[in-house]
């Protein structure tokens, strides 16, 4: 498979300058990242750019994107995305979102259905499902998080998290430098603004999903330890005509675990 390189730029928005990864040609496909703020060196975006023009903004507060202090909740997040779409000339793109990004995509698609043509929700957050709580992301160790996020602990990112955990356990907090944890602190801080309480969900969202008109694909990672499969199933049930796919041998971070396979499933769905 040939890859189309996605390159990094910035775009001015109402809340400030935000980073944008962009590449490929054809129908626009917007990718919204998770609370991990994945983006740098994300091969998945290159793979996805085989199927259209990929636009992957880094949300305010993540990476070097500015303006998080002007965003207090998921409603502000939706208005930021609308602003971004307008500035990019995106009328009604396909929107793909992982986890936190899936929540944003779903909020956008039910509030402004005419701005989303295809919706792909990958291990989406955003709902409260009784008896199937989303595990904690704000107070656990990197080791615990890695176990939830990756089916295969030998994944390079999982290995990095385990290394971090080892440093803290063996050398105390003092062995961690600020630069090592800065990206993660920024990502968690931005995520907390949106999802500290109610925890990674909007109690109103489920009752609004009937408004989604985009053709919708929900992808569950079979071994996701963070968001139970009942969440994807609920989205698939509440959104008219939604299709539910379960990918095997992956957990939460599917774009990092099986980038090629996810790009293919997603690309073929949005191209139809």
């Amino acid at each position, binding site marked *: 498979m040939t890859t189309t390189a996605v390159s990094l730029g910035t775009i001015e928005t109402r809340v400030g300058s935000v980073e944008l990864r962009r590449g490929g040609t054809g129908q626009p496909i917007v990718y919204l990242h998770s609370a991990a703020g994945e983006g740098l060196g994300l091969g998945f975006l290159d793979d996805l750019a085989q199927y259209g023009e990929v636009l992957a903004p880094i949300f305010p507060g993540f990476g070097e994107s500015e303006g998080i202090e002007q965003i207090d909740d998921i409603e502000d997040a939706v208005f930021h995305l609308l602003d971004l779409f307008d500035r990019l000339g995106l009328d009604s793109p396909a929107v793909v979102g992982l986890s936190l990004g899936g929540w944003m995509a779903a909020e956008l698609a039910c509030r402004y259905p005419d701005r989303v043509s295809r919706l792909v929700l990958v291990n989406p957050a955003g709902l409260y499902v009784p008896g199937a709580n989303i595990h904690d992301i*704000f*107070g656990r160790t990197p080791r615990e998080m890695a176990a939830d996020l990756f089916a295969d602990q030998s994944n390079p990112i999982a290995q990095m998290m385990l290394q971090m955990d080892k440093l803290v356990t063996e050398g105390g907090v*003092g062995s961690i*430098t600020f630069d090592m944890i800065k990206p993660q602190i*920024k990502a968690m801080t931005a995520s*907390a603004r949106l999802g500290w309480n109610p925890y990674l969900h909007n109690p109103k969202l489920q009752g609004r999903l009937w408004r989604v008109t985009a053709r919708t694909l929900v992808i569950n990672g079979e071994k996701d330890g963070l968001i139970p499969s009942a969440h994807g199933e609920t989205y698939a049930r509440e959104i008219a005509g939604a299709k539910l796919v379960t990918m095997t041998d992956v957990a939460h971070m599917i774009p990092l675990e099986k980038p090629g396979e996810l790009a293919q499933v997603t690309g073929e769905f949005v191209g139809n």
Partner: protein
Amino acid sequence: MRIFNFHLMPYTGLPDDYDGPAWITCPNEFFDPALGNKLYNRYLDELVYSEELGFDGVCVNEHHQNAYGIMPSPNLMASILARQTKRMKIAVVGNALPLYNPPTRVAEEFAMIDNISGGRLIAGFVVGGGPEYYSFSINPAHARERFQEAHDIIIKAWTEPGPTEFMGKHYQLRFLNTWPKPVQKPHPEVWIPGAGSLETMDFVAQKRYAYMGIPYFHIDFFDRTFGMFREACERAGYEPDPLQSGWLVPIYVAETDELARQQYEEHFWYFVKRLLPGINISPPGYTSLRSIENILKGFGMWVSSVKTWEEVVDGQYAIVGSPATVLEKLEASVERLGVGNLLGLFQLATLPADLTRNSTELFSREVMPRLRERFGTDAALAVKEAV
């Protein structure tokens, strides 16, 4: 200077085989109300007795869902103390403002305590510890904004004629008209604890409030912190009064140095190893990036990193010894830090009532008078508004 007896009201009944955190998720099945009944009454007795011993005041504080200090409402304790004492200052250090909605509640309860006590309240305002944001599910990313607005509401309620209103981002109050109002004018003395963030110091300096150093650090860390606070006051255009700063430190006095360590050490380690674990959790957004960088630098100077008793002594994580030893150390450190308020933790962790009493009596009889001879007996810090 002024000398206070600070009480955390620790829980002493954790099971021996429990080695988890004392905060947020420490199972509340460990709480035994029969023990709670004994502890609360004993601890209140210890605070009330401080008046007889000649302390300038007592301090209580607020923490939730933990074994470190079973005082979710320090205002309840302070209102009892307001009735049971006649002379001492009662410092509530403090109320965690973002946890009260609306924060009018703090203006009301503090004013009640000030009325009942005849103007003896010291009003402490805190952002609340990191664990509080988990325990109350309050968004830590909004902590500083909420603290600022809550502070403005309380001061407005106390100093401006009501009814008035407050329109902020987090709180909108159409009819702000607090009854009662405090006895002390323009309002009770305000104390703000801080862990070294420059933003907090500048705020305290500009308002001419008093800055209380967050405890359990190496003496060098406090020295740096209070130096930074003096600089903040200088930036605000004045020399701070020593009463504008306070040092909180565990103190234990016995007849001899040997006896003091022998009686005290196990309780100190219980505190460090059983009651502190979990206190340090820092929820995302609770601290600015710049402050996190500072705080990381201070971690090696915090008591949890200490392994031996010699390190405890060297870093003055606790002042322990005979009256002569304790006096000598306190004189030197109070002088070095330039603080006008000494906040002693005389009861700590599992330290039993008899030892606590003996230590506090020895301190008041043999150490306190010498400290006063040396540093004077300032009665109160006049509340001044920033010009």
